[in-house]
C-alpha cells in the first residue's frame, strides 16, 4: 500500500475521531514522560559526581588516599614523586565544610590544590596552571552556583565552618561554566593547598595524591605505590570516588529502581490503556476494510502505520514533557548523600533513557493494535466485531474472561512458588502481580458488576442499575478504566507502603545509634556525627563541669574509604550503655558482642561488608590504618546501620590508637535526671566558647529529627514518583472516562428524547464512573498490599536495611478517595457538556 494512501487513511481517521486520537496520544505521552524523567533523575546523581571527578582528574590513573578525613603527611608526596614511573603527582586536600554567606549556608567540599594539578589536563582544572586562573594565596574561588546560593560576591568575606572551627575567608573569584565546565554546578570551594591545610586544621597533611603514570607503566607503578602505602594508605583507581558513590547510592538506587520499574510498567500500561480506548473503533474499521475486500497485508499496513505514527508523535511529546519534569520536579539532590559526596545539580541524560522511554511508548501503541490485528488475521466472519456481546468491538466474552483469569491465577501461583524458594526474586513478583491483576480484571469486573446490580435491585437504586448496564455495555473501555485505577492504586500503595516501612526501619536504626546519650555535640550542618573536629582537654573539662551534665564521652569515627566502599566507622566510647544495638544485630549475640567490642580488638560488621569480604562471626577483619593494618575479630554481623555501604562498630580507644587521632566526631553528654534540657544545652554552648559557632549542640530528639529530615530528602524521589504516578493516573482516568462519555452522546440524546432529565444523566454518568473506578481501586488496594509486602522483602534483601511491614489504612483510604475525586472531577466537565446534548440529535440520523 502506498504511503500517501496510508497518510490519507490516517487523515480520515483523525478527522473522524480527533478527540479519541488526542486522548490516546496524551495517555502515551504521560507514560513516556514518567518513565523518562525517573531514569534521568537516577542517572544524574552519580553522573554529576562522575563528571566532576573526571573534570578534576583528567589523565589521572591512580590515587593514593588516606581513607579518612584526617589525611596523611604531605612528605609522602616527595616519596611518590621520586618513583621512576610517576609522570605527574599532585596533592589534594578534600574536607567537608559549611559555607556561610549573607543569604544562607550550603554544605560544600573544600578542595585544596596545587598548580601541578593542571598538568593532568582535567577540563575543570586545566585552567588553574601557570598563566591561567589564579587563586589568591589566602582566598578561595567557587562556582557561581554556590556563590549565588549563599549570596557571596567576589572580594566579599564569607565564613567556612570546618572541622569544628569558624574560619573567615575571602572570595577571590566566582567561576562559571565557561571557566570550569561541569564543576560550575558542583558544591565546591577551591583554594591553594597551603590555605586549605590552614582552614581545615590539617597542617602538613594532605587527603590524597592524584598520579599519572609514565606510558605503559601503570601496573608497575601501582605495585610500587602499594609497597609505599604499606597497608596504611589506600591505592585506588582514578574513578575510586565515583565507585564509592555508586556503592553509597546503591541502596537508594535499588529502592528507586524498584519504583522506577513499577512506574515504567504503569507508564506503559497507561499508554496501552489509552490506546485501548480506540480499539472498538479500529475493530469496526478493520471489519469495514475487510468487507470491502482489503487483504490482510493491507489491513496490517494501515493499522501499523496509524499506531506507529501515533506512538512516535506521542512519545516525542512525552520525552519533551519528561525533560521538563526532570528539570523541575526531579531536580533535587538526595540530602543524605550531599553531606559526604560533592553531588552537583547538573542533569545527565543518557541515550539509553531516551531510547527506553521512546521505545516503550511506541511498543504500547503497537501492542494495543494487537486486538484489531487479530481480526485482520481471522479466517472467520469479517464482521466478527459486530457479532460479539456489547457495543461492536467492545465485547469481552465470558470464555475470554475465564481464560484470562486462569492465566492470572497460574501466574500468581508460579510467582508465589518462585518467590518462596528464592526471595531475591521478589521484584519479579511485583511485576508478575501487576500483570496478573490486569489479566484478572475482566473477570473481576464482570463479577463485581453482577454484585452491584444485585445490590442496586435489592435497594431500589434505579440510577445505579442503569449505570451498571452502561458499564457492562462498554466492557472493554470499562475494564481499561478499572485497570488504570487498579494499577495506579497498586503502584502507589506498594511504593508508599514500602517507602514508609523503609523510613521506619532506618529511623529505628538511627534512634538506636543516638540512644546512648541525652545531648550530642557535632560539627555544624547536617553532619550526623560523621565529621571530626578538634576539642582540647580544657573544653572537655569545662563541659563536664556544666551544671546538669552527668557524664561526657568522646565519640569518634566518621566516613572511611576502603576499596570501593565509603564505610561509616562508629567508634563508641567504652562507657556507652549500648555498643552493639540489639535491634540491628543480624548474627551473634548483641550483648556479648557489645562486651567484646568494649573490651577491645573486636568489631561489629555490617552485613554488606561481611558479604563483600566473606566474613562470619568469629572471623578476622583487617583495615588499613595510619598506625598500620588493624586486625579485629568479628563479634557480630549487623544491618547496614542506615548507611548503604555499611558500617563498622569499634571502641573509641582502638580507633584512637590505630588512627592516631584524638579528634572526636561527636561528644556524648548524659544529663542529670532533674536537669532542664534547654537550659543545660544553653550552658553547654557557653562552655564551648568561640567553637560553639562551628558546632551544633542538640538533644537526641532534635538530632533524630535532623536524621529524619535527611532521610526524607534521600527518599524524596520515591515520594515524587508516587505523587506523579497518582497525577498521571488521574489524568489517564480522566482521559479514558471523558472519551467514554463523549462517544455516547447519541445514546444520551435518545435518553433525553424520552424525557430523561439532565441531572439523571449526570448522576448516571457519575455513578457509572464511580462504580468502574471503585472496582479498580478495590483490586488495586488488595494487589497493592501484596506488592507492598513483596517490595519490603526485596528492599531488605537488596539494601540491607530493615523494612518492617505495616498496613497503612489511613493512607490507603485517602488514596482511593483522592483517585475517585480527581478522576470524577476531571470527567465532570465533559460529563456536564455531554448531558446537555439536545434531544433532537436522536432524530437526525
Amino acid at each position, binding site marked *: 500500500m502506498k504511503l500517501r494512501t496510508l497518510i490519507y487513511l490516517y487523515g480520515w481517521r483523525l478527522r473522524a475521531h480527533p478527540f479519541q486520537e488526542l486522548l490516546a496520544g496524551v495517555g502515551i505521552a504521560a507514560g513516556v514522560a514518567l518513565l523518562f524523567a525517573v531514569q534521568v533523575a537516577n542517572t544524574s546523581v552519580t553522573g554529576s559526581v562522575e563528571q566532576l571527578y573526571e573534570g578534576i582528574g583528567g589523565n589521572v590513573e591512580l590515587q593514593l588516599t588516606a581513607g579518612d578525613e584526617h589525611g596523611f603527611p604531605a612528605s609522602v608526596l616527595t616519596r611518590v614523586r621520586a618513583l621512576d614511573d610517576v609522570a605527574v603527582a599532585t596533592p589534594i586536600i578534600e574536607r567537608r565544610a559549611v559555607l556561610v554567606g549573607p543569604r544562607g549556608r550550603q554544605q560544600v567540599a573544600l578542595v585544596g590544590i596545587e598548580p601541578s594539578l593542571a598538568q593532568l589536563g582535567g577540563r575543570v582544572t586545566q585552567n588553574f596552571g601557570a598563566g591561567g586562573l589564579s587563586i589568591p594565596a589566602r582566598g578561595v574561588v567557587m562556582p557561581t552556583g554556590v556563590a549565588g546560593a549563599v549570596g557571596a560576591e567576589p572580594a566579599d568575606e564569607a565564613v567556612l565552618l570546618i572541622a569544628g572551627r569558624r574560619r573567615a575567608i575571602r572570595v577571590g573569584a566566582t567561576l562559571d561554566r565557561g571557566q570550569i565546565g561541569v564543576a560550575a554546578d558542583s558544591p565546591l570551594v577551591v583554594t591553594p593547598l597551603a590555605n586549605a591545610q590552614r582552614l581545615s586544621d590539617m597542617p602538613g597533611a594532605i587527603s590524597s595524591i592524584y598520579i599519572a603514570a609514565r606510558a605503559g607503566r601503570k601496573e608497575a607503578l601501582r605495585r610500587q605505590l602499594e609497597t609505599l602505602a604499606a597497608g596504611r594508605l589506600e591505592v585506588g583507581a582514578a574513578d575510586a570516588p565515583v565507585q564509592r558513590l555508586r556503592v553509597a547510592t546503591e541502596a537508594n538506587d535499588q529502592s528507586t529502581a524498584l519504583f522506577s520499574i513499577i512506574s515504567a510498567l504503569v507508564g506503559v500500561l497507561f499508554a496501552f490503556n489509552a490506546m485501548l480506548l480506540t480499539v472498538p473503533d479500529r475493530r469496526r474499521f478493520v471489519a469495514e476494510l475487510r468487507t470491502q475486500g482489503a487483504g490482510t497485508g493491507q489491513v496490517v499496513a494501515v493499522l501499523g502505520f496509524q499506531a506507529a505514527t501515533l506512538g512516535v508523535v506521542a512519545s516525542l511529546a512525552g520525552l519533551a514533557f519528561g525533560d521538563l519534569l526532570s528539570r523541575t520536579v526531579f531536580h533535587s539532590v538526595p540530602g543524605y548523600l550531599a553531606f559526604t559526596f560533592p553531588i552537583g545539580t547538573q542533569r545527565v541524560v543518557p541515550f539509553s533513557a531516551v531510547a527506553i522511554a521512546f521505545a516503550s511508548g511506541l511498543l504500547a501503541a503497537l501492542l494495543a493494535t494487537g486486538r484489531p490485528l487479530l481480526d485482520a488475521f481471522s479466517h472467520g466472519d469479517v464482521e466478527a466485531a459486530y457479532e460479539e456481546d456489547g457495543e461492536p468491538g467492545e465485547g469481552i466474552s465470558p470464555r475470554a474472561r475465564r481464560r484470562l483469569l486462569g492465566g492470572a491465577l497460574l501466574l500468581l501461583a508460579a510467582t508465589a512458588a518462585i518467590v518462596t524458594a528464592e526471595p531475591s526474586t521478589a521484584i519479579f513478583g511485583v511485576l508478575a502481580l501487576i500483570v496478573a491483576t490486569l489479566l484478572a480484571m475482566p473477570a473481576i469486573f464482570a463479577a463485581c458488576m453482577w454484585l452491584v446490580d444485585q445490590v442496586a435491585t435489592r435497594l431500589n437504586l434505579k440510577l445505579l442499575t442503569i449505570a451498571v448496564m452502561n458499564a457492562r455495555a462498554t466492557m472493554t473501555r470499562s475494564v481499561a478504566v478499572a485497570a488504570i485505577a487498579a494499577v495506579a492504586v497498586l503502584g502507589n500503595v506498594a511504593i508508599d507502603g514500602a517507602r514508609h516501612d523503609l523510613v521506619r526501619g532506618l529511623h529505628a536504626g538511627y534512634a538506636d545509634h543516638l540512644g546512648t546519650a541525652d545531648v550530642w555535640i557535632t560539627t555544624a550542618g547536617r553532619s550526623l556525627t560523621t565529621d571530626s573536629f578538634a576539642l582540647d582537654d580544657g573544653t572537655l573539662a569545662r563541659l563536664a563541669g556544666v551544671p546538669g551534665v552527668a557524664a561526657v564521652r568522646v565519640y569518634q569515627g566518621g566516613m572511611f574509604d576502603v576499596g570501593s566502599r565509603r564505610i561509616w566507622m562508629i567508634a563508641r566510647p567504652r562507657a556507652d550503655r549500648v555498643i552493639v544495638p540489639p535491634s540491628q544485630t543480624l548474627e551473634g549475640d548483641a550483648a556479648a558482642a557489645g562486651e567484646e567490642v568494649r573490651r577491645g580488638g573486636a568489631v561489629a560488621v555490617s552485613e554488606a561488608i561481611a558479604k563483600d569480604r566473606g566474613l562470619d562471626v568469629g572471623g578476622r577483619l583487617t583495615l588499613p590504618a595510619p598506625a598500620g593494618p588493624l586486625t579485629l575479630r568479628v563479634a557480630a554481623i549487623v544491618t547496614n546501620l542506615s548507611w548503604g555501604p555499611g558500617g563498622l562498630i569499634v571502641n573509641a580507644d582502638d580507633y584512637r590508637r590505630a588512627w592516631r587521632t584524638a579528634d572526636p566526631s561527636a561528644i556524648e553528654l548524659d544529663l542529670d535526671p532533674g536537669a532542664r534540657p534547654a537550659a543545660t544545652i544553653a550552658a553547654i554552648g557557653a562552655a564551648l566558647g568561640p567553637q560553639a559557632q562551628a558546632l551544633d549542640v542538640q538533644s537526641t530528639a532534635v538530632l533524630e529529627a535532623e536524621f529524619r529530615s535527611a532521610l526524607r530528602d534521600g527518599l524524596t524521589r520515591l515520594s515524587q514518583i508516587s505523587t506523579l504516578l497518582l497525577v498521571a493516573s488521574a489524568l489517564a482516568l480522566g482521559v479514558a472516562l471523558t472519551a467514554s462519555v463523549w462517544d455516547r452522546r447519541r445514546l444520551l440524546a435518545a435518553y433525553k428524547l424520552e424525557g430523561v432529565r439532565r441531572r439523571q444523566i449526570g448522576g448516571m454518568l457519575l455513578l457509572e464512573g464511580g462504580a468502574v473506578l471503585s472496582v479498580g481501586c478495590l483490586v488495586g488496594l488488595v494487589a497493592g498490599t501484596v506488592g507492598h509486602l513483596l517490595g519490603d522483602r526485596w528492599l531488605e534483601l537488596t539494601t540491607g536495611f530493615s523494612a518492617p511491614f505495616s498496613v497503612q489504612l489511613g493512607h490507603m483510604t485517602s488514596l482511593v478517595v483522592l483517585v475517585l475525586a480527581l478522576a470524577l472531577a476531571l470527567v465532570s466537565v465533559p460529563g456536564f457538556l455531554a448531558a446537555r446534548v439536545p*434531544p433532537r440529535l436522536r432524530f437526525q440520523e
Partner: protein
Amino acid sequence: MSALELDAVAKRYTTGGEVVCAVDGASLTIAPGEVVALYGPSGSGKTTLLELAAGTQRPDHGSVRFGGVDLATLSAGEAARYRRSLGFVFQRFYLHPGTSALDNAAMKLLFAGWAPRRAKQQALTWLRRVGLEQRAGHPPSKLSMGEQQRVVIARALAGEPALILADEPTASLDTERGRAILSLLAGICRERRVGMLLATHDPDAAAFADRVCDLRDGLLTERADHRPAAAPAPART
C-alpha cells in the same frame, strides 16, 4: 377528545442561506387508539413533523397541542415530562449492548423512577406481549433485527405512553418482518387506546394505519380513500 392536535403548523429552516419550508400549514389530529401514517419520500418533512409532535422543535406558526396544552408554552422540565409520557420507536434501535433484552425494556421505567424489581416485572410483561419472553435474558447481539425492534416496542409501551411516535420503524427489516412488527404495534395501540404517529416512506407500512396523510414539500394532505390493511396474526420474527 384527541390526544394530539396540530393546527396550521409551519416550520422553516435556513440551510446554506436558503429558506426551506419543512412543514407548511399542516393540521392533524390523532385520537386515542388511532394510528396515523405520515407518508412521503425522504426530505418531505416527516421527521420535522415528528419533532414538532415530540416538542423538541417549536413551530414558527400554528400550534401543537397535547391533551389541550400548547407544547410551545411548556418549560424545559415540563417538556421533558411530556416526552416521558410518549413512546418512541425508531429505525435505529439504540439498545444497550452487553445487557439483556429485559434490562433494555426496563431502562425507561428506571429513569421514570420505578423500583428496579417492579420495572423489570413490567418490562417482562411487555416482552411477553411482544412474544419475547423466552429471549428476555439475551443480549441484543443475540437477537434478530425483528426481535430487537420488538424489544424497542416493549420498551416504548412498558411506560404505558399516551402516544407513540414512530420514525421509519421497519426500515431496517425485510418486508415480512416489517409487516409483522407493524401489525403488532398497530394492534397493541388500538387495543390499549394509544395513539400513534407513524412516519414512513413505505406504502406497505402506511397501509397499517387507520388514516394516511401524504406529506410532500411540507404540505400535508389526508388520503380520503384509504382502507386500513387487515392485521395478520402476530408472529415471531
